[in-house]
């Protein structure tokens, strides 16, 4: 088994991501799926376009999944982030992992989605039903430690 990650425009099949993890050593599987929802801050949303610096997002995602693998001692991790125009209800991100015990599974899953939001060079353009759109406010990207 090995850590698997992908960034790209292909539709995400959560069950397929789920099928990439699990082992006879593991007692717990946790899957997180982020989906495009129909409202944001009280406004009706019609869709979301994900722009990415794809090559860097892919290497950052691989790096953070490896960090999680080392920290929680499991290589049964699969993470995919979608790019491009998504309609309501479509998955934008899916994180599947399996671990011997459940506590570490929930922890690792949560850590990965937070790290994705902090470290992946990806941006969301939110389209509202009223025809307006905006870049979703994001987080200051990381800077390297002073050398």
């Amino acid at each position, binding site marked *: 088994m090995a850590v698997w990650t992908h960034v790209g425009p292909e539709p995400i099949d959560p069950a397929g991501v789920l099928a990439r993890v699990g082992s006879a050593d593991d007692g717990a599987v946790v899957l997180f799926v*982020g989906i495009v929802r129909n409202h944001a801050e009280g406004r009706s949303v019609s869709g979301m376009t*994900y*722009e*990415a*610096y794809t*090559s*860097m*997002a892919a*290497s950052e995602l691989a790096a953070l999944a490896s960090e999680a693998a080392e920290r929680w001692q499991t290589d049964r991790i699969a993470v995919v*982030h979608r790019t491009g125009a998504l309609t309501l209800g479509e998955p*934008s*991100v899916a994180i599947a992992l399996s671990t011997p015990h459940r506590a570490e599974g929930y922890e690792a899953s949560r850590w990965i*989605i937070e790290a*994705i*939001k*902090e*470290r*992946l*060079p*990806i*941006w*969301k*353009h939110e389209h509202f039903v009223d025809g307006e759109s905006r*870049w*979703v*406010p*994001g*987080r*200051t*990207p*990381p*800077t*390297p430690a*002073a050398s």
Partner: protein
Amino acid sequence: MQVHTLFFASYRELVGVPRLSVTLPGGSRARELVVELRARGAPFDRLPERPGLAVNEAWASLDTELGPGDEIAFIPPVAGG
């Protein structure tokens, strides 16, 4: 030396282009690139003085030293997930 800049999302919209090649003195740091671009006036003066940066797909700062052919991305606040 020549370097290659990339602008994403809101920064791409601000400057109107997704990429641009820029000639800089050898030994320049990222700071000099930002200063050089902003000095060009509109629309480049809309870029922030301290944008998020990546050099060759690694997170960087204004102090990061640049080399010939480097790819420097201007990274607005990120919002993946």
